[in-house]
């Protein structure tokens, strides 16, 4: 197969190196299913720059993975549809580009790591095949060269005996090693932006730390932008620069990582922080968030968090949805009562 | 494809996995029963609205009425034939579908030919359902050596291509008194052979269902409360596992009718003077090119019947599968 991408060194047509790496502007996604339309993302905006780590935090079903898939352009459609907004990579709105152009952005410019490496890797091909495929199809390399590069990559992600293991199948690796393979695969074509969707959720705690350490190290070396999607506040604290907290398809709080831990500005963030078990509060009752995340086909009017929030007043229960109040440069909260939440 | 095991697997693959209902934490039988009641009444409502099912059901009811009271459908005796009036075309005189090569009224043969086919299918289906459910429940519930024996025998039978096995046995039996004495005796022998070679599919489905049901919480709970084995089987497990068997049985009715006709066509099934669609087809095959309707008319009725049963089975499966709603 002769691929158009044999020489991909010229960047995507119309990009400007000076523009921010990735800007998402008012993104909206909905899933049209038989039971109704689920509004998965309702106007999400954020920005990531080279060398920076943005964490997107939220419970399962809040739309964080959907955001990642929308950026990658791998949303299952149908049922998923992007109904509005822009996704700008170096100033170019990807949503306005052809499928072929978007395909070439994937892996070359923006790459992704998935949560469960066992199911995300194809069980019937060797790890080497799945890595080499990238070099062969995107760079037009020979089988032998591609295999050599694959071994180098496995070395890079610190898989021992890479030369032998390149011929192994995914199920022959341990969970942590498999996730390293996923990372190697994502980094193969030197992308500028890496999206990691719950990269450590399926792993043991000790392995989690190793993988996060590796990711951070590789990111610094290559000055990549990193979007880290997680529900785990512990993971975020060590690596992220900034945090966006999502709830029911919207961003409810944005802040640098230290500020969020020190002084959350949204009741939801605050509740999340309080629900982490802490050694110094041993013996006390753990604060869990009451209720369940809303059904995305019937999101409550006003602030979507109002049925579970202890600050709720009548204004929260009616539209419009509270806007993101700019509190300080870099800190914003979508709560009418952010002052009370911050204790100011 | 008249292979019952293949047919049940291609058509009825879904229900085995889908009938395991949401686990009920409650230990008494009420929730299981209620759930089943609503499953069946929901399914009933859905089936009534399904045109394919209703048309098929109507066709089958017509055929069943022909089998039970054939004299209401034709005033002629199928045994009275006039060789001088052989191979008359349809609509001649009072012969609605013309006459056979022996000058028998073709319509009366069609009417009287339903009974043996339906009877074989019905007996065989009852047989495989009874045998399959019993063996499936026993081997699924008790496991161990019961399971080992049943599974090994099932494997053996499964390794013998279905029709080939029936063909060999019936050919050897063909001249025996059992196969020449009367139509009813032929019917019973063919049905028994079909059962012996056909029970494996139902057993495997049932065994799977029982294994799945065994691990549901309410079964554990019933066990913990000291319910007896038989009570657990009949009150808790069977109601949950029976839906896929009903689907398979419906489809099996169609497959057995096809199997009987195929065996008869090959000369190993029913033999004249028995009257059946298969006999009609086999008896006129040598006149096929000159008088194609003599073959095509019974073929048409045959395909209609088989198709109806299979469509009904398909509709039943869709209606009984809560996941598809």
């Amino acid at each position, binding site marked *: 197969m002769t691929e158009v991408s044999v020489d991909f060194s010229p960047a995507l047509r119309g990009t400007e190196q000076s523009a921010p790496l990735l800007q998402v502007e008012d993104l909206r996604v909905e899933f049209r299913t038989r039971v109704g339309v689920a509004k998965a993302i309702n106007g999400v905006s954020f920005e990531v720059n080279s060398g920076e780590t943005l964490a997107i935090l939220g419970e399962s079903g809040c739309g964080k993975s959907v955001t990642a898939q929308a950026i990658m352009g791998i949303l299952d459609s149908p049922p998923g549809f992007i109904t509005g907004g822009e996704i700008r990579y170096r100033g170019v709105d990807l949503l306005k580009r052809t499928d072929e152009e978007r395909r070439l952005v994937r892996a070359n410019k923006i790459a992704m790591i998935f949560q469960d490496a066992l199911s995300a890797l194809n069980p019937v091909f060797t790890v080497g095949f799945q890595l080499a495929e990238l070099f062969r199809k995107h760079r037009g390399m020979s089988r032998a060269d591609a295999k050599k590069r694959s071994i180098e990559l496995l070395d890079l992600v610190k898989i021992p005996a890479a030369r032998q293991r390149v011929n192994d199948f995914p199920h022959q690796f341990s969970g942590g090693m498999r996730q390293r393979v996923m990372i190697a695969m994502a980094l193969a074509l030197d992308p500028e932006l890496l999206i990691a969707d719950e990269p450590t959720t399926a792993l043991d705690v000790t392995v989690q730390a190793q993988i996060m350490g590796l990711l951070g190290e590789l990111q610094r070396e290559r000055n990549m932008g990193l979007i880290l999607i997680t529900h785990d506040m512990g993971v975020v604290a060590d690596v992220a620069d900034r945090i966006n907290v999502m709830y029911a398809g919207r961003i409810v709080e944005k802040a640098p990582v230290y500020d969020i831990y020190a002084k959350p500005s949204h009741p939801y963030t605050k509740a999340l922080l309080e629900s982490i078990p802490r050694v110094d509060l041993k013996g006390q009752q753990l604060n869990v968030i009451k209720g369940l995340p809303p059904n995305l086909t019937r999101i409550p009017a006003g602030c979507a968090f109002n049925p579970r929030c202890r600050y709720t007043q009548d204004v929260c229960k009616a539209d419009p949805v509270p806007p993101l109040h700019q509190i300080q440069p870099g800190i914003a909260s979508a709560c009418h009562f952010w002052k009370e939440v911050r204790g100011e | 494809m008249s292979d019952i095991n293949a*047919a049940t697997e291609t058509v009825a693959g879904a229900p085995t996995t889908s009938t395991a209902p949401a686990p009920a934490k409650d230990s008494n039988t009420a929730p299981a029963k209620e759930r089943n009641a609503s499953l069946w009444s929901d399914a009933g409502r859905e089936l009534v609205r399904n045109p394919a099912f209703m048309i098929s059901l109507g066709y089958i009811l017509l055929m069943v009425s022909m089998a039970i009271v054939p004299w209401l459908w034709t005033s002629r005796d199928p045994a009275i034939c006039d060789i001088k009036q052989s191979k008359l075309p349809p609509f001649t005189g009072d012969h609605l579908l013309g006459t056979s090569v022996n000058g028998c009224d073709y319509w009366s043969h069609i009417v009287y030919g339903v009974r043996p086919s339906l009877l074989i299918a019905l007996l065989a289906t009852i047989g495989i359902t009874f045998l399959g459910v019993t063996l499936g429940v026993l081997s699924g519930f008790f496991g161990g050596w019961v399971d080992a024996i049943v599974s090994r025998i099932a494997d053996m039978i499964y390794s013998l291509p279905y029709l080939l096995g029936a063909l060999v046995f019936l050919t050897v039996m063909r001249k025996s008194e059992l196969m020449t004495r009367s139509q009813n005796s032929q019917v019973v022998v063919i049905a028994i052979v079909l059962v012996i070679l056909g029970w494996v599919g139902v057993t495997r489905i049932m065994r799977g269902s029982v294994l799945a049901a065994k691990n549901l919480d309410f079964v554990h709970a019933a066990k913990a409360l000291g319910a007896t084995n038989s009570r657990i089987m009949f009150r808790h497990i069977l109601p949950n596992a029976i839906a896929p068997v009903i689907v398979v049985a419906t489809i099996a009715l169609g497959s057995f009718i096809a199997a009987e006709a195929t065996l008869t066509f090959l000369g190993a099934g029913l033999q004249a003077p028995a009257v059946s669609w298969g006999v009609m087809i086999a008896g006129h095959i040598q006149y096929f090119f000159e008088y194609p309707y003599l073959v095509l008319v019974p073929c048409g009725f045959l395909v209609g019947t088989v198709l109806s049963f299979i469509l009904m089975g398909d509709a039943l499966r869709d209606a009984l599968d809560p996941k598809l709603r």
Partner: protein
Amino acid sequence: MGRYVIRRLLQFIPTVLGTLFLLHYLTSVGMQLTGNPVRALFGDRTPSPATVEAITRKLGLDDPCLKSPGNPCLELFWQRLGLAPRNGTFSGYLQGDFGTNLRFREVTDIVSTALPYTLKITLIAFLVEAIIGIIAGVLAGKRSGGFMDYVVKIGTVLVISVPVFVLGLLVQLFVSVKFGNWLRTQEWVPEVISRGLFGAAYKIDYPFASLVIPGVVLGLLGLAATARLTRTSVQENLRADFVRTARAKGLTGKRVIGVHTLRNSLIPVVTNLGLSVAVYLTGAIITEGIFNVPGVGNQIGKAIFQGESMVLIGITTMLVLAYLTITLLVDLLYAVLDPRIRYE
């Protein structure tokens, strides 16, 4: 893989013995209930007792157990297998002796003359089933609810509902006779097409062309099942995580379907293709009979017609052995295709 192969081989022997015993028992019970099948061979004539006895002994049917209903005739079974001596010599399946017909022609000889025809139509049937079935199934699975999806769904139900012999008769009447007769009046149509391909029966002058239609009829049997299985398998795999990964790797749609989805989807399909050979065994009796192909199926038909039980048992035994061998090969192939089994 070694352990899997050994286990499978060890299971093979009892399965073969069990299945052959089942066949042996069915026929023995048949004879016990019917009486000496040799008598039936003479039709209305009454042969002298000496003749009957001589033939009976020659055919190996003189064992007294064949007169007591329900007796499993174990001794006879071992003799037929060639594991116990009969009249002082070992001659059974193991020694390549599958019995003789009434004129003492070896069953192996009958089969070897007929086999090439059956192999040819089986090959045609297999190709029809595999190629059309897989293509139709992939097209149907790729677009669930699309046109091909309905074609496959309806086709499956129809093929299951129409007995093979009805299908064969219909094709013979409408394609080979009606359409063929018209073709034969057209002067521009070459004979190989009008008389060979669209002939109503096998003709020695067109050894391959006149086998095509019987082969296609035979292939239609399994076609629908293959298409349906491929369809469900493709649908399932398209939702798999590793397909999303393949898309995230920026691979072309063709490669995502053709390599990453198809390879995985075909594992169950290949198994099914192997098993459809069983359907061919019985189907061939019918199609070869209808189209008058002098193959193995036709010999079975002849044996049924003439009441040659020993020929029927001999051929059936060979077919069952062939079938069991094929299932064994399919199982081993399965291990080659699915590395998860290989390394169990």
